[in-house]
């Protein structure tokens, strides 16, 4: 569990072992029949594997017996045992894979559904990458540990069977074999610690070196531009030499493991040869039994070396499944009190003394009231942290608020059927998000029943469809991962068309700040105006053209409204809005020229 501390999240909880076993058992229950067969085949394999040395030893015994004949039965026995071992192994692995595959599948389904249910406060707080790794890697790790543990149990059973047989033949010689056990376990554990240490040390150094190598590669183009190749080459040689030194040191440490284990094995074998001979000579065991002990030695060591891995593997598996369960069990804080149907919405939004904070003690909205009339468009402006996005996101019911009321058409937002309500909502986040697929797929994301013709007609309404001409395959163009084959502007257009297709009653937009070529930007504005025309809109505005187009500008500071009005009125008032304008919007004006520097600068010749 040493590594696991790294990815502890606040929603993690400790389950009691019994609880954990009960939960895991519930996932295993559907595969009861398979598990029984797996257990039986493990027993069969272990028994047969222990049997092979016995058969071989018996064979050797026959050679040693004067007047013996060809041991046909024994030879046949060895063949049959090996074939059965292989078949048993086949059966075991086949069924294990299926059982694990299915369990992992159910775990993934459950954890993903839970993740989709969690509210945005959860998603804001916890990095997507880590959630993904719980759903994919942790479930897989758990499955892997189950498989490994099953295998180790098989090996241990084999050792126990052999040990019982050996004890019955010669307790003294068995003791000699077993005495090495603790030594081997200790050595294996020691090497595990060494390996972990050097790997971790190495990984850290390697990360540094990799970063430096990446930099030297990244700098090539600049170096060539200024003809400074030899400088960066010298720098590269240094970095490369450091990487080499680190790697060699780590490699040498790990290179000692197997030689040391082999040396130990030499001592073990030597001792069994010596004491085995003594037992054969004076304690009356046969040469065949002596041979059996020698064969057993190796069969003992292998599982023993693995045994120290066993516990850590069990721990890894349990820690992994614990993380998955924590993800599943986390409770969403957005709770609906009812599920009133939402067929039509006029778009009247009323905040009444709403209190809201993100749960870390700070109040984002201490007591916020705002009324947005149906069809009105409101631009929210203010410095970072003024509470703009909180207001927008509360309307989308992404977060739970702590006091006051939010009323949609006069009805408590908590009493609505959430899915139905959100279908009447058009939400565009600051970084427009596209899913892999075509442009058309993305436009119809919120309304999957929309026909191609409908989408085409809609696409034509913006800038006479000129933006489609810039796409290699028009609406069928693949947008790439997260929309990477589209420009930022095109992505925004698609995100707006998605909303336009929805014809939402309420439109919530967190405007993008990315810079976009003016032609695309003009089309984005067009699409925006089309949406604003028919919907009640709450817009976190970053663009001058958008604030100008809004019916009302609400200036926020510390979660309170400090000014209201339209652009012209607020500008001439010369108050807070004027100040914000000078900070964030001034350079977007068409007649912008940079302010000269306060102190005089020398003019270029």
């Amino acid at each position, binding site marked *: 569990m040493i590594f696991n501390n790294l990815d502890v999240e606040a929603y993690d909880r400790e389950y009691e072992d019994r609880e954990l076993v009960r939960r895991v058992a519930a996932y295993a229950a559907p595969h009861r029949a398979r598990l029984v067969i797996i257990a039986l085949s493990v027993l069969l394999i272990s028994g047969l594997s222990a049997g092979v040395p016995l058969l071989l030893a018996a064979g050797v015994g026959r050679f040693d017996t004067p007047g013996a004949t060809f041991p046909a039965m024994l030879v046949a026995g060895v063949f049959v045992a090996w*074939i059965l071992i292989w078949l048993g192994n086949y059966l075991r692995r*086949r069924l294990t894979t299926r059982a694990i595959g299915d369990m992992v599948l159910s775990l993934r389904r459950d954890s993903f559904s839970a993740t989709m249910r969690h509210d945005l406060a959860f998603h804001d707080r916890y990095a997507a990458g880590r959630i993904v790794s719980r759903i994919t890697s942790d479930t897989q790790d758990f499955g892997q540990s189950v498989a490994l543990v099953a295998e180790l149990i098989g090996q241990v059973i084999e050792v126990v069977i052999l040990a019982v047989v050996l004890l019955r033949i010669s307790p003294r010689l068995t003791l000699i074999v077993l005495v090495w056990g603790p030594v081997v376990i200790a050595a294996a554990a020691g090497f595990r610690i060494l390996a972990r240490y050097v790997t971790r040390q190495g990984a850290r150094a390697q990360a540094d070196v990799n970063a430096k190598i990446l930099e030297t*590669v990244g700098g090539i183009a600049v170096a060539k531009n200024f003809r400074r190749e030899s400088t960066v080459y010298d720098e590269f040689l240094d970095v490369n030499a450091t990487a080499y030194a680190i790697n060699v040191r780590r*490699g040498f440490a790990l290179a000692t493991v197997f030689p040391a284990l082999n040396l130990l094995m*030499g001592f073990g074998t030597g001792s069994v040869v010596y004491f085995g001979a003594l037992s*054969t000579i004076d304690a009356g065991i046969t040469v065949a039994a002596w041979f059996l002990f020698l064969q057993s030695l*190796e069969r003992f060591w292998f599982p023993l070396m693995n045994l120290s891995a066993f516990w850590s593997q069990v721990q890894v598996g349990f820690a992994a499944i614990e993380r998955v369960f924590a993800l599943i069990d986390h409770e969403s804080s957005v709770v609906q009190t009812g599920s009133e149907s939402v067929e039509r919405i006029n778009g009247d939004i009323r905040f009444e003394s709403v209190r809201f904070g993100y749960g870390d003690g700070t109040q984002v909205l201490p007591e916020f009231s705002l009324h947005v009339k149906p069809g009105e468009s409101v631009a929210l402006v203010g410095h970072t942290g003024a509470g703009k996005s909180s207001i927008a996101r509360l309307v989308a019911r992404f977060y739970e608020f702590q006091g006051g009321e939010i009323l949609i058409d006069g009805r408590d937002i908590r009493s609505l059927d959430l899915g139905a309500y959100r279908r009447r909502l058009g939400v565009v986040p600051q970084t427009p998000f596209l899913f892999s697929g075509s442009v058309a797929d993305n436009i119809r994301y919120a309304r*999957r029943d929309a026909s191609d013709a409908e989408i085409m007609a809609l696409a034509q309404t913006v800038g006479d469809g000129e933006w489609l001409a810039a796409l290699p395959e028009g609406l069928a163009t693949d947008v790439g991962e997260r929309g990477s084959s589209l420009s930022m502007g095109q992505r925004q257009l698609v995100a707006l068309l998605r909303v336009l297709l929805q014809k939402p009653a309420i439109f*919530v937009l967190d405007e993008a700040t990315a810079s976009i070529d003016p032609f695309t930007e003009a089309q984005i*504005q067009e699409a925006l105006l089309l949406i604003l025309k028919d919907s009640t809109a709450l817009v976190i505005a970053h663009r001058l053209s958008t604030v100008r187009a809004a019916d009302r500008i609400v200036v926020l500071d510390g979660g309170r409204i400090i000014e209201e009005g339209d652009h012209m009125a607020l500008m001439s008032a010369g108050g807070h809005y004027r100040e914000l304008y000078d900070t964030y919007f001034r350079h977007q004006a068409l007649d912008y020229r940079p302010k000269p520097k306060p102190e005089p600068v020398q003019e270029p010749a």
Partner: protein
Amino acid sequence: MAQSEFVVERAFRTDRSSPGRWVRSHVLRQGWLIPIVIGGAFGNAALAGVVPVLIGGAMDAVSRALEAGDGMPSMPAVTRAAVLIILSQAGRAVLQLARNGGSELFGQRLERDVRDELYASLLGKSMTFHGRQPVGDTMARATNDVRELNLMFNPGLNLVVGSSFFLIVPALFAYRLDPRLAAAPTVFIFAYAIALRHYLGVLKPITRDVRATFGRLNARLAEAIDGVEVVKGAAQEDNEIEAFEADARAFRDAYVRQGEKEARFLPLLLLGLTIGAGFWHAAWIYFEAGSTLSIGDIVAYIGLLSMLSFPTFISLFAYSQVSLGLASARRVLELVNRETELDQNKDGAAHRIEGRIEFEAVEFGYTADRPVLTDVSFTVTPGQTVAIVGQTGSGKTTIARLINRTYDVDKGRVVVDGLDVREWSLEGLRGQIAVIEQDPFLFSRSIAENIAFGRPDAPQSEVEIAAREAQAHEFIERLPDGYETVIGERGVTLSGGQRQRIAIARALLSDPRILILDDSTSAIDSATEDRIQRAIDRAAAGRTTFLITHRLSQIRWADLVIVLRGGTVEACGTHDELFATSAPYRRLFVRLGGDSDLGAQSFGPGEDQVGGSNGGGPR
């Protein structure tokens, strides 16, 4: 022509004619490490094979003594065998250590040398190459692929060599016991090779499936979680869950198929059958064929056969490591060998550029079937500031790349000061053109060194002048060590705008005649924008400047505006001309001006309603 721009003199040259030969020449270079690895591997296997033989000897001694009535006299022989076993294993450990260490050195040196070779070759390649080659791809080859080559030798080939001796030694030693006994292990070697080959062939497509389905599962999952705001906003949770389950099921199916094939691992059965067959063969020789085989020989033989289990299990891993390594070798060598077909024209013109630039009916495409620019013509007089505007993909960046000859035109001409760019010496041309990228690269060195990168001998005073011109002096002074602050150290990171201004200072210090500036990033606030624009104004003074920009205000003040649309020049002229003649251009200003406080008539120069005026119109 294929003259390299940078060459490292080396005593050793590698054979780059094929990946196999290339790897071989790197291997041969390691000299004394080769016999250590091979010798160590053989010694390791041989000394492992000595153990069963010694055991057999001890058993024979005891068994003969017992037959004679008293076992005790055999004890000295037993003791000797036990001691020899321990000593042989100590020797084996030493050899193994030497082999592992040698192989470790081998792999690491290879990684170091290959990376060195790759890096030096990258430095030797033309700007054209670097203009075209994606940096991310180069980085992947310089780190991951080079690392794979290391792993291909250690543990990959190390294990291949080691495990093949574990196949050979049993056969050899069995032959010495009785030539006939070599049969079973020899047959195993061949049967095993065939079975392994078959297994790898069967497994390959399935492994690919598993990887592909997992990749898809992961990618779509990450997408759904990253885009959770959109998913929830559009009430699409159920659809996403359904899609996820389909992906997860596809992976589960591939995983189960893989498990099934792995369960059918034939070499394991072969190993069992070989031990059975060997046992039968030994018994047959002993009882039926009449021989001098002793019981100790049989014991030794069984011990030798069980040595085969090591290669049975290990070679799978070893072979896949080697094939991964070969694929990486191919990728690295491909990069090393890639030629850049641009003529350097070393004897071409190299005099000072005035800055007159003409495009004459230029046509160009990155691939033959898809022209990016068609029939592009315009003329820029020395010292002008030119704004290039157009939608993403309209060909703005391509125009810049044709000027500094990252690419050559397909048709038409690009002319600088009356000479076709191909008549200039490449170095003379590029030395006078500075390109400032959207996201400029800075080295993890001091700020002063970064600014003086093109002129390392520049005195501090000139560095500071350049920084002042680029509006960077003030923020540099505020950094903990001023100009000596090392970028990236002790948490010193620079914002996009600051990086851009340092890049401008770097370009200014080398005093280019033509400046190409990609300014399509956006400043969050007006004060930052002020600084960037002042820097650009300074930089543009006295030199021909191309601005790739999104800002209407910048476009407005430029001496010349080129509007690109779908790879052709839609309109070209001053702002006033375009405003009067081009409807799309005018529409742009009207639409983005909103219901504007600016009427069309007020687009005159020098007007500034809000900020202070700097009193300057377009130059």
